[in-house]
């Protein structure tokens, strides 16, 4: 069993889930409206917000994707943080 996550974990996770939700909605819209400049601009802006929030989340709670798992040369970060159904 992994140690319990800190209290701020939920708040940060929900921020991330919120920006990702906006991006998912824009993505589905753009799939069938690929030339809508306003949607494209929104997608760009929210991608940048996502980059910042995901960076802060990963710095505190570990990698969101396995490619970020080797920040330390001593242990494999990817398997350290809890899995989604464990929090």
């Amino acid at each position, binding site marked *: 069993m992994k140690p319990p996550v800190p209290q701020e974990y*939920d708040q940060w*996770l*929900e921020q*991330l*889930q919120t920006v*990702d*939700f906006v991006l*998912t*909605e824009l*993505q*589905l819209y753009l*799939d*069938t409206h690929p030339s809508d400049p306003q949607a494209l601009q929104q997608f760009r802006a929210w991608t940048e917000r996502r980059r910042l929030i995901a960076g802060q989340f990963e710095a505190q709670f*570990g*990698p*969101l*994707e*396995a*490619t970020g798992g080797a920040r330390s040369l001593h242990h494999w970060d*990817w398997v350290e*943080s809890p*899995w*989604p*159904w464990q929090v």
Partner: protein
Amino acid sequence: MWIYQKKLQYPVRVSQCNPRLAKYLIEQYGGADGELAAALRYLNQRYTIPDRIIGLLTDIGTEEFGHLEMIATMVYKLTKDATLEQLRDAGLGEHAADHGPALFYHNAAGVPFTATYIQAKGDPITDLYEDIAAEEKARATYQWLIDMSDDPDLNDALRFLREREVIHSQRFREAVEILKQEQQQKHFF
């Protein structure tokens, strides 16, 4: 290919251990109109749908796997602290005899998942109508589940999933209109 993200699409919380509710929820895991069927249906239809719709099927199919993970999380959280006796009393005795504490792809009545739940006709409008119907059936299932559940935390996540079915249905309806318009245009060679 696919890349895994270590988070759920939307938070899943449950108020208390409730294996009876888990037994019902498994309908959306391995049932006819569940999330597994949805993901497999759309991702398989991608190869023969017109180019303009491939992106939509790819991205909705991918989102369905995220929903599958949310349902699994609900079932896991509702049953992880249950004793074998509680599982048996909730009607999960037959399940436990085969799978112990593991999840499995079957419906609420225990019927194992089958590929006959999904269709692929290679006719774009036919396939998209199938997809619209699938989303509406899933939406209706989520409504039954919400009506039967007395867990307010769980219902929050179930409502999110129900709304996603509505969005996907609307996206597929729009895709049908796009294809119809394209078919009506004159083609010059």
